[in-house]
């Protein structure tokens, strides 16, 4: 277990997890045909070290929210604070793992994973090795992205994000393209990483069970424009089991929230 733990986790940069404050965030996309409101008065506090899962219908604005938090775009209105300071631009302490792997086709698996280090001019071959091992791609370190399956590409993207030692990890359906077995393994891995590293995590997922198993809190969004429908804190006394009746109860509750708005919409 100890040797499977990546080097980057070994707190060479013992940085505290990040807290987030979103208040009254509004955001629209402007197009020639008019503007499209995507986020409607979203307010949310995330404590340092929390694992928050975001659930909502497709196209409601979850990815947009992550882009705002990452600093890739600025909200039209509202304030967005990371540890009390306004977010104005991207920063390596807030790493986003996109819905699409978006690997660079001209870099090998290894080269893609080391991207963050290259950008900051750091050299740390051991950290790269550890990250490759973490996602189980040792044999593919020298492969080109077009030689990977969809799930493997997503694992590379995860390793590429983790190597930056983020204080806040934004995950946009990180396990979406994995087969169910790999998915279970990666869920456990993600959970373990979050536990051991103590970064704050914001994860978009369509899998309610995954949200309930991994997160400390589940946020349910309405269809576009996204409003927060429910904010469900989870405090499992011990690691929950998939067949736990309370888990099934919560699952039913979340589905009720979604069905109610879907029916109205």
């Amino acid at each position, binding site marked *: 277990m100890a040797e499977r733990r990546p080097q980057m986790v070994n707190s060479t940069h013992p940085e505290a997890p990040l807290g987030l404050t979103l208040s009254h965030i509004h955001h629209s996309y402007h197009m020639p045909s008019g503007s499209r409101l995507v986020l409607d008065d979203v307010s949310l506090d995330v404590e340092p070290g929390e694992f928050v899962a975001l659930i909502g219908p497709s196209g409601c604005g979850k990815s947009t929210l992550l882009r705002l938090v990452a600093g*890739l775009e600025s909200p039209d209105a509202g304030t967005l604070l990371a540890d009390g300071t306004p977010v104005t631009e*991207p920063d390596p302490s807030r790493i986003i793992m*996109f819905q699409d792997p978006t690997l*660079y086709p*001209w*870099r090998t698996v290894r080269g893609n994973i080391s991207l*963050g280090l290259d950008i900051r001019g750091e050299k740390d071959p051991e950290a790269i090795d550890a990250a490759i091992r973490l996602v189980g791609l040792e044999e593919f370190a020298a492969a*080109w992205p077009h030689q990977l399956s969809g799930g493997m590409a997503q694992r590379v993207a995860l390793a590429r994000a983790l190597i930056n030692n983020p204080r806040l990890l934004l995950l946009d359906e990180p396990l979406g393209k994995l087969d169910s077995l790999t998915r279970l393994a990666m869920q456990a891995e993600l959970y373990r990483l979050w536990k051991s590293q103590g970064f704050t995590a914001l994860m978009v997922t369509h899998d309610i069970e995954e949200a309930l198993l991994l997160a400390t809190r589940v946020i349910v969004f309405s269809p576009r424009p996204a409003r927060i429908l429910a904010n469900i804190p989870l405090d499992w006394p011990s690691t929950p089991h998939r067949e736990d009746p309370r888990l099934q109860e919560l699952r039913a509750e979340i589905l009720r929230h979604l069905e109610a708005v879907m029916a109205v919409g």
Partner: protein
Amino acid sequence: MSDAQTSLGDPRALETHVQTTKIRFRPAQFWRWAAGPAWLLAALVTWKWPDADDFPATNQFAVFQMVIGLVLIALAATGRLKDRAPWAFVLGLGLGAWELIQAKLLLLPRPFFGTPQDLLDVFLTDWKRLGDSLFHSLLLLAGGYVPGSILGIIVGVALGRSHHVRYWVRPVMRVIGPLPPAALLPLAFVVIPSTRWAGEALMALAAGFPVAVLTWSGVSAVDPAYYDVARTMGAKNRFLVLRVALPAATPQIFVGLFMGLGASFAMLVVAEMLGVKSGLGFYMQWAQGWAAYPNMYAALFVMSLMCTTLMTVLFKVRDHLLKWQKDGLKW
């Protein structure tokens, strides 16, 4: 192929070999073993058949053909003559046919149609001047193509990344770009004091325009998500241009580099024929003036060799830089 080698050494194997060839003709084997003898046969014709007129270098040409024939046989025996065997065979016979038609039977009007040994004679007697011309052509080409391409890439990236550059440069490009650079030659010879610099400037223009346009199109087509990925990890503009935009646009840039190289060749010849007093184009011009057609053909041959070699080099560089691509055009 190894069974052919043993079959030659072992008489019993030869029998079975003959039997199997009766059943099916094996073209690969035929080409491989026919190429060398074809050249030797042609050499024999060159040597023994009397010339129709007083042509130079007949014996040298026979020796040349014989050497090639022997080399081909050696290659066949060591199993290194494979894909190229049919070409070697046809080339040998073709050269032999040309020799027969012109040097031995004189069926085509002179001096417009030379003989193979005329050509060989030029290489044997005038190789110094040919080599010198080639060297000067390469120098002139490099002086125009290399800076032109670099400038083209810089302008293309700027066009793809900056709104301001697009606003100011695009109209200029639209006016000057499509103009054949050769049309500017008279002007350039007047404005630029050295004909050499004028030629280089126009070659740079000829290469720069396609390179700039294709680089621009490649950079604009870069998936914005590529930039987002790097930006979240702290990348600044320098990294985004040099390590994201440029590699992502490399396939397109090479299309531009190929087009630019072709345009530079054209410009090179025109410049050398019209003003620059050196190089293969100038040599050809001179040869034509003296009705020295074999010299002209020889220069043409050298020039084609130069162009194809440079293209091959460019393809090799591309294949190396784009080895991450699934597949690519083969030259």
